[in-house]
């Protein structure tokens, strides 16, 4: 169930009421998807495609001494076996840290360029054959001899070896310090000092990483599954050593990305290399198992949260220290404590990020990088503090609600955290929660309630869009934006239709081709606002161009129309008391159609970003039932109340939040990739053993959007929300588990074996 609350007086409700923007319109690409006609990367059909299969390293660190592929080459249908010995030259990988933040996305990512093995299952060979089956069978016949070196994989035991990186992901300061944290924490009358652990996690989008590479002369077209085409184009061009213009990326439909498809991976590089060698199209996909080592992960972390407060419940000190594993050859520092800098007021503050190198592939951006693991820990610590203060967790948060961004010292654009919590409490029946744990029982089950806050920065990425209208009134927009399953096609259709006053059916949105105007793609929850704003500007520009021509063209019924603001609505244009059909008008003044472009600059370069602290907010509520005999934790209900600016489509937005809440269930209760420190491999590398929530785990979920319009954020008034559902939702569940059982598990996920020792002897 989704609702829009309508109470807020200063909201722009009258403006948005009849608007297409905000309406819960079903996905415009839905019919294509459910009928199997949306073409995903591996499904693009070309003549003569050959199939590649990757063989991964059997060790985690060392050197290849010998590769014998003779038997594989004899398999009928095998066309080529590529190893480091015969792969086309590629640049060296380069330093662990790129000179600038954006270069991490565009740097060369060579594959099969050395006998070194840097991580388990790193590609050591690519077999290309007439069929996938032949390639896979042949790969099984390749014999590789290694010289193994001992790798290091442990995090908790090596915190003393940690180093401070130069910056975190997304270019934030590694540390922040305000006031005197140590002094204030030592002097605080009520304290929490708790250490939490979060495990390796994997994105596991439904669609695996897959690429079809087709060369034509010295230009290559890459059909792949990418969130940001410009990154793929640049990254592949660097790896192949060719200019970007010779790489075209096509990715119209994406079966989920979650941050695992922001940079090129081995499938893309190897397909491009093999297709060039063989002079014919080549398809390469990672298997589900291969994705665990080769397509990014969230690193294991240890977090120490220290909160000091007065008896009045006001925080005097906030400390958030994060130790994270990182790949030794490519640094990745998730910005886990960065949100802490903006969430609650306290005069004395400290946040720090430290890294411990391990012999794994690089970590990547995984849905809500930073907040996902960070809020899981921090919002549990707040719950622990509330209990020590004998305060309701919502009241504790209200008492520490800042009036401005506590570390940046700038005002918030919009911040409805308190309203989210209060509205949520009312709807959820929070008053039924017993603050003393283990008090609500239903038969053999212990029932618990928990809540947590949500915060996620609002980013805007540079984006451009082109929009054209033809003489029949049909509108086509082009952007190199992607729809990773979030509903981008749909909301962009709504924005264009609304702006130009035409029906949705008259709009055609073309995405997923690097030949289209460049955007920041899908990532960091910035997609809708960035691409949407660019399109909005393009539509405004188009209207201006239409009106220019309409006012001056001899053939125009609006010729000489006065300066009154034209109104585009219902497929018509009105100026003053003159109204004409838009199609008719274009047909007369521009039989070949009219087009225009629009763009937005990256958020950090804008004045409004410098002068306002921009975040989306929310409050999550969870009810769990814990079997008092076995410790099994099952969800009962979840509610999220969200304040994220103007909602562009209540249905797709709700889906995003629901998905995020489900990720919260995963992070709190089941997701964990087990790393075997003896071999350096992820043990449970498939979807039978890596548990994500299934339908039966989700139960009842409700999403409520507070009516909000953030005029500082962008011309649409919208803020990012694709990741907000993850932020804190896991903590709400963990707090509910505590409320149910009185057991505080600080090592995620909270599986039943961790509760078992603390449960009462069976109550039979």
């Amino acid at each position: 169930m989704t609702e829009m609350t309508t109470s807020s007086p200063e909201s722009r409700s009258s403006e948005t009421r009849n608007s297409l923007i905000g309406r819960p319109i079903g996905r415009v690409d839905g019919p294509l998807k459910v009928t199997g006609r949306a073409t995903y990367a591996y499904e693009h059909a070309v003549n003569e495609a050959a199939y590649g299969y990757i063989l991964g390293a059997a060790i985690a660190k060392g050197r290849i001494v010998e590769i014998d592929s003779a038997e594989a080459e004899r398999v009928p249908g095998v066309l080529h076996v590529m190893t480091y010995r015969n792969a086309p030259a590629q640049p060296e990988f380069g330093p662990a840290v790129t000179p600038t933040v954006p270069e991490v996305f565009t740097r060369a990512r060579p594959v099969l360029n050395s006998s070194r093995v840097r991580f388990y299952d790193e590609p050591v060979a690519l077999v290309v054959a007439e069929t996938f089956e032949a390639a896979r069978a042949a790969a099984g016949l390749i014999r590789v001899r290694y010289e193994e070196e001992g790798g290091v994989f442990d995090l908790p035991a090596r915190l003393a070896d940690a180093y401070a990186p130069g910056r975190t992901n997304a270019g934030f300061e590694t540390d922040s310090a305000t006031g005197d944290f140590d002094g204030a924490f030592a002097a605080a009358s009520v304290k929490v000092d708790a250490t939490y652990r979060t495990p390796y996690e994997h994105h596991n989008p439904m669609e695996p990483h897959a690429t079809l590479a087709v060369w034509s002369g010295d230009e290559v077209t890459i059909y792949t599954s990418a969130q940001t085409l410009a990154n793929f184009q640049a990254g592949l061009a660097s790896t192949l050593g060719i200019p970007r213009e010779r790489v075209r990326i096509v990715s119209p439909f994406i079966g989920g990305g979650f941050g695992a498809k922001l940079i090129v991976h081995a499938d893309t590089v190897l397909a491009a290399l093999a297709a060039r060698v063989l002079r014919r199209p080549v398809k390469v996909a990672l298997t589900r198992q291969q994705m665990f080592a080769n397509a990014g992960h969230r690193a294991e972390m240890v977090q120490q949260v220290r909160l000091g407060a007065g008896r009045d419940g006001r925080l005097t000190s906030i400390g958030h220290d994060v130790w994270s594993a990182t790949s030794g050859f490519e640094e990745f520092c998730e910005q886990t404590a960065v949100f802490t800098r903006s969430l609650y007021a306290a005069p004395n503050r400290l946040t720090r990020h430290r890294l411990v190198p391990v012999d794994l592939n690089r970590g990547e951006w995984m849905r809500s990088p930073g907040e996902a693991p960070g809020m899981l820990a921090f919002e549990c610590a707040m719950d622990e503090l509330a209990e020590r203060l004998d305060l309701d967790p919502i009241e504790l948060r209200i008492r520490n609600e800042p009036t401005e961004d506590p570390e940046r010292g700038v005002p918030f654009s919009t911040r409805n955290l308190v309203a989210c919590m209060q509205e949520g409490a009312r709807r959820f029946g929070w008053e039924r929660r017993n603050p003393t744990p283990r008090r609500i029982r239903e038969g053999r089950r212990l029932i618990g309630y928990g809540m947590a806050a949500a915060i996620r920065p609002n980013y805007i990425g540079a984006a451009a869009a082109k929009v054209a209208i033809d003489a029949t009134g049909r509108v086509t927009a082009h952007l190199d934006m992607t729809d990773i399953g979030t509903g981008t096609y749909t909301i962009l259709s709504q924005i264009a239709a609304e702006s130009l006053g035409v029906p949705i059916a008259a709009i055609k949105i073309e995405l997923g081709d690097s030949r289209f105007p460049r955007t920041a793609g899908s990532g960091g929850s910035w997609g809708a606002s960035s691409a949407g704003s660019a399109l909005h500007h393009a539509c405004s520009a188009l209207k201006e161009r239409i009106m220019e021509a309409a006012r001056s063209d001899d053939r125009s019924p609006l010729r000489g129309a006065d300066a009154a603001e034209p109104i585009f609505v219902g497929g018509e244009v009105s100026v003053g008391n003159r109204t004409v059909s838009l199609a008719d008008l274009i047909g007369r003044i521009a039989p070949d159609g009219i087009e225009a472009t629009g763009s937005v600059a990256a958020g950090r370069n804008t004045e409004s970003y410098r002068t306002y602290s921009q975040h989306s907010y929310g409050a999550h509520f969870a009810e769990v039932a814990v079997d008092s005999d076995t410790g099994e934790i099952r969800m009962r209900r979840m509610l999220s109340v969200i304040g994220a600016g103007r909602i562009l489509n209540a249905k797709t937005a709700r889906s995003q939040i629901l998905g995020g809440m489900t990720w919260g269930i995963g992070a709190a209760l089941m997701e964990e990739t087990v790393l075997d420190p003896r071999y350096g491999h992820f043990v449970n590398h498939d979807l039978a053993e890596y548990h994500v929530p299934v339908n039966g785990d989700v139960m009842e979920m409700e999403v409520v959007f507070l009516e909000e319009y953030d005029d500082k954020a962008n011309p649409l008034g919208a803020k990012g929300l694709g990741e907000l559902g993850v932020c804190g939702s896991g903590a709400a569940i963990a707090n509910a588990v505590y409320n149910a059982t009185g057991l505080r598990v600080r090592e995620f996920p909270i599986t039943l074996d961790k509760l078992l020792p603390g449960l009462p002897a069976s109550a039979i």
Partner: protein
Amino acid sequence: MQPFTYERAGNVQAAAAAVATRPEAKFISGGTNLLDLMKLEIERPTHLVDISRLPLDRIEETPEGGLRIGAQVRNSDLAADPRVRSRYPMLSQALLAGASGQIRNKASTAGNLLQRTRCSYFYNRNMPCNKREPGSGCAALEGFNRMHAVLGASEACIAVHPSDMAVAMTALDAQVETTLPDGKARTIAIGDLHRLPDSTPHVETALGHGEMITAVTLPPSPPGRQVYRKVRDRASYAFALVSVAAVVEKSGDRIRGARLAIGGVAPKPWRTREAEYVLVGAADSGSAFSEAAESALAGAVGRGGNDFKIPLAKRAIRQTLAVAVEGA
């Protein structure tokens, strides 16, 4: 996956003979386990004999008042059969607690019994595993063994048998009917179908090469209340950490009859006769359930990651017995 030849068997005996004559041949039924293993080259049969279309898909009454379940009866059909649901509800519950709807639609009765362990090291050809490669060692012993066995295991292998269905069938004293390559039939008590690993974990069953399961017979349903309880890491679509199949018959406030089998804890579905002796004749009280649970887990050995299964199994047994008694 390595290339293989394929044939569709015309009848049971031809199928058995076709496998028997080739050392690297295997039966394929629903393929939901075998194909996964072949893709990963854990199994590398050179010849497949498809038995999925043989007319072994009926569930029939036996003269004794039990049911005879054809080897090809799909897990979903078996779970939905009204006779099974009314007379052997624990079997239906066990089936529905396993895998997913899609898999159950493909999975056959015999294939379910013969599915192989889900040990992650068994599934990874780069890891030592005595079951996959005899003599190579067991990576799970000192490794990630949260899912592994606490009963019946050996130093060579601590893998568990993952089937839910088989646990219920074990409590129900099922008999497994087979056809040998020479056409002869034999019957194996379900408790004797799977072997303990000892020093030969790669030898998993009592079946000879080419011996084909044709049916599973259930004796008349035992008196008392049946309950199958599966404890797992998520609400659905997860293998058992521990499962309990219990049949309890009461007389007044005493227990007249009891059957107890547990899953997820041993290399085979684990019947706990000692616990049954404890229960029969005892008062239906928590202390009898606790004693039975202790007895069922007597001799259990944890290997680190799976230590919790010992208390968990005891708790699950106590709870299941209590639930069975409540309704009995």
